[in-house]
Each structure stands twice: as structure tokens, then as C-alpha cells.
């Protein structure tokens, strides 16, 4: 298991005695607070039918002037049709085709991704990690569902599911096997636990026999799963659908 980056805990920077004491006191107080708030939530009504509940909520908020239906439509349209893994595939293809771009992508991911016009919401800070013959990267968000929206769109259900979130960090090879990817023992697996502020994109290995392909053709080979790290790319494989 490689480096696992976590957001949930404190940062592991130097802390002096006073800092530690304050932290401990703060932690004690926070525990009480959160307990109280958990009890607060005991009254939460279980929604019988989410569809009805959301419909009622939407009409209430529209009536109160808190949301505009046209904005809701625009948001849905954006993530259903405009922002998705095709963006990430273009980034990967460019990195395969242009070594200088790849270098920029690995050293300053945000700026390099922005060169292709992607960035912003839920991908304000992105890091690209490179798969090689000896290193395989796997991305997870154990705490929730953090995912680089500008390049991959909204995460699939399995990425947000308890089985994937719980197991990726303790049994990444087992998880990969479930996706049909068996890694050799001498391949190092690095698991990256995303945070709200820092999201990861895997740069998959360029498959053999693609030397003559154009950048557009290359982009067609790149799958969403390969950019999360749960798959490799085979030449025959079909790429992500637009």
C-alpha cells in the first residue's frame, strides 16, 4: 500500500506543546458538540419517497424565491451533457501525444488542465498521478465522494458506495480484482484519498501499438475507469462515450 492522504485528521505538521494542549482541549469540546448535534438529528424524518420530497422542496424554494428553475435546468444539463470524462480523456491524450505537456501536467496539474479549458467547480485543485509499468495509482474518497468534476464529471454510484470507500484503502488489489484488473506482485499500488480541496486524476499508461494514432483517436481509447485507476486501457477497448 502506497501513500494514503487523508483530510479527516489534523495535519501532521509540527505542533508545540501548547498547540497540542489546545488541540486536545478542542477535541474534547468538539466531541461533546458533535454528540449533541447527532442527537439533534434523531428527529429527522425518513423520506418515504425521495422523488416526491424533492418535488415538494423544489416548489417550496421556487415559491419563496430561493431558487430559479432555469438555473436548476442549466446545472443538470451541464453535468449530463457538457462536463464529463471526455474532458479528462482529452487531457490524457494530450499528455500522451506531447511530452512537454505531460511534464507540465504532472508538475502543475491545474495550470496544464486549464490549458485545455477545464477547471473550476469541484476541481479547483487537482493533482495528476501517473501510472507506469511498476506503479499503479488508485483514487478514492473514503469520507464522501470527492472527484475531479471538471475532467471526469459527477462520480458513478460505485465510487460513492460504502464497499469502494471502505475497502480501497485496506485491500486495493482486491478492489482492482473486482473490476477485473489483476496486478503483478511487483507493481506498487498507490492509493490516493481525495479531499474536498484536492482531487486526483490518474494518467493511465499509453497502450502499446498506438504510436501512429492521432490525439483525437487516442482520446477515444481513454476510459473513465482508467482515469480513476480501477482499469487499464487496452487498444481494442472502447473509450468513454461522450
Amino acid at each position, binding site marked *: 500500500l502506497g501513500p*494514503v492522504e*487523508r483530510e*479527516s485528521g489534523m495535519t501532521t505538521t509540527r505542533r508545540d506543546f501548547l498547540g497540542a494542549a489546545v488541540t486536545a482541549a478542542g477535541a474534547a469540546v468538539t*466531541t461533546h458538540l*458533535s454528540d449533541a448535534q*447527532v442527537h439533534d*438529528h*434523531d428527529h*429527522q424524518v*425518513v*423520506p418515504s419517497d*425521495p*422523488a416526491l420530497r*424533492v*418535488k*415538494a*422542496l423544489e416548489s*417550496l424554494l421556487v*415559491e*419563496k*424565491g*430561493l*431558487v*430559479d428553475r*432555469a*438555473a*436548476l*435546468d*442549466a*446545472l*443538470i444539463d*451541464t*453535468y*449530463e451533457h457538457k*462536463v*464529463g470524462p471526455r474532458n479528462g480523456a482529452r487531457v490524457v491524450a494530450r499528455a500522451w501525444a506531447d511530452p512537454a505537456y505531460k511534464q507540465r501536467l504532472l508538475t502543475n496539474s491545474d495550470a496544464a488542465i486549464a490549458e485545455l479549458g477545464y*477547471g473550476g*467547480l469541484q476541481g*479547483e*485543485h487537482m493533482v495528476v498521478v501517473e501510472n507506469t509499468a511498476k506503479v499503479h495509482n488508485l483514487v*478514492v474518497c*473514503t*469520507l464522501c465522494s470527492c472527484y475531479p468534476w471538471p475532467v471526469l*464529471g*459527477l462520480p*458513478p*454510484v*460505485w465510487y*460513492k*458506495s*460504502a*464497499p*469502494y*470507500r*471502505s*475497502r480501497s484503502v485496506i485491500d486495493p488489489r482486491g478492489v482492482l480484482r473486482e473490476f477485473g484488473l489483476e496486478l503483478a506482485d511487483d507493481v506498487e499500488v498507490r492509493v490516493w*484519498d481525495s479531499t*474536498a480541496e484536492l482531487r486526483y486524476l490518474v494518467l493511465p499508461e499509453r497502450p502499446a501499438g498506438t504510436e501512429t494514432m492521432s490525439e483525437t483517436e487516442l482520446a477515444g481509447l481513454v476510459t473513465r*475507469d482508467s482515469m480513476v485507476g480501477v482499469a487499464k486501457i487496452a487498444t481494442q477497448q472502447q473509450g468513454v*462515450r461522450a
Partner: protein
Amino acid sequence: VNGIHDMGGMHGMGPIQPEKNELVFHAAWEGRAFALSMAVDGDWPYGADRYATEVIPPEEYLRQSYYEKWITSLVDLMLKSGMVTAAEIETGRAIEPNTKKGHALTAAEVPPMIATGGPASRNVPAVAHFRVGQRVAVADLHQRQLRWAGTVIATAVGVSLVAGQRRGWLLRSCGAMCLLLPHLIGPPAAIGQNSVPTELVHRFSIASVATSAMFWLLVGTLGGLIYSRNQADPNALPTV
């Protein structure tokens, strides 16, 4: 907080179930739930929505689907901020006038909002004092260690001579000399060109002298306090 959301490493959650040709939203309501959460302009601080999801009771957290949790936390936040009331959520009709009117996002504002996002980087105006690879001058390591050990020994000897009982003025004077000597000799000189800004050197000197002074004052005061307590009543039982 060690809540249900902190799933990394948990056992028993079952197999992963990837879907073939998964839709972005599995039903229309999922898209509406997503969009509502994105569009509502609440007055809660950054990260409050995340926290509102994390405190959903564990059994509910596991039972609810992803976008159900989004709606649960959104409603929770809006109730707490006073944007809506419980009765309104119950009936789906506006009852109270909207006093905490947030800005209703328009369709035209969606693209710039998505393009900008909410960067988490902070604008730090300070300029780094050093650059990577910059050379700084320090004294020889062995000389520094020698001076440190010498100072400790001289101070210990000095303190025992000055503060010990039944000492003549000569011994006490020798003790005082032992205390002063390492500081009169001074630290070993740094070797090479020092590129550390003079201002920084001054600030470091002041900070280190002040820190040492405070430390020793504290040690002295506490030591004296404990000493005088023990002296006050040698037969007294230790207090718990």
C-alpha cells in the same frame, strides 16, 4: 470525528457493484436534488454541508442513497439558517415570508459559477525568506556541541557553587565566573558567507533570548515555589 462517513478501512460493506453504461442521474429527482443543493445560496460557512451529511445518524446514512443524503443535509441547513420552517417542509407550501432571502442563482450565472468554483487556496502575502538551495552559514557542528556541553557543565558547577550552603565569598565568586564564562567566550563563529538577512538574524536573536528568559523564569519560579512549599512544613503530608 469517528463517524459512519469515515469509511476507510471498514469491513463488511459487501462487493462493489459497478453498473454498465451508468447514467449521470438515475432518475429525474436525482438531478433536481443535485441542482437544488448547488443552487441554494445559504449563509452557512464553507464545509457546513459536508458536516450536515456526516452527522446523519449511521443507520440513516447507510440506508439513504447518495442524493437523498444531499437533500437531508440541505433541508437541515436551511431549517437551521431559518430559510425555511419545518411546517413548510412538511406541507411543501410557503407559510412564512422569506426574511433570509439568499440570492436565487440564475441560469446565466451557472457557467461562470462552474468555471470559477471556490478555490481553497489562500492568498498568502508574505514572501519567503529563503529559497530552495540558498546557502546559510552555520558554525562547525563539533564546536557547537562542545560549547553546548561546556556551557551546561559550567552552569551546573556555577549554580552549585553560588547557591550551595556554607560557601565562602571566594567559592561563590568562582561560581559566578563559571556561570558567566561560557557567555563571555560566546558561540563559535559561523563559517562562510551568510546570506541570511540581517533583520532576520536580529529577530531570531530577540526571539531566542526572550524565549530562553521566559523558560528559565518559569523554571526558577516553579522550582522556588516547590522548594518553599516543602520547606514550609517538613512534617506535612503531601497534598493530593
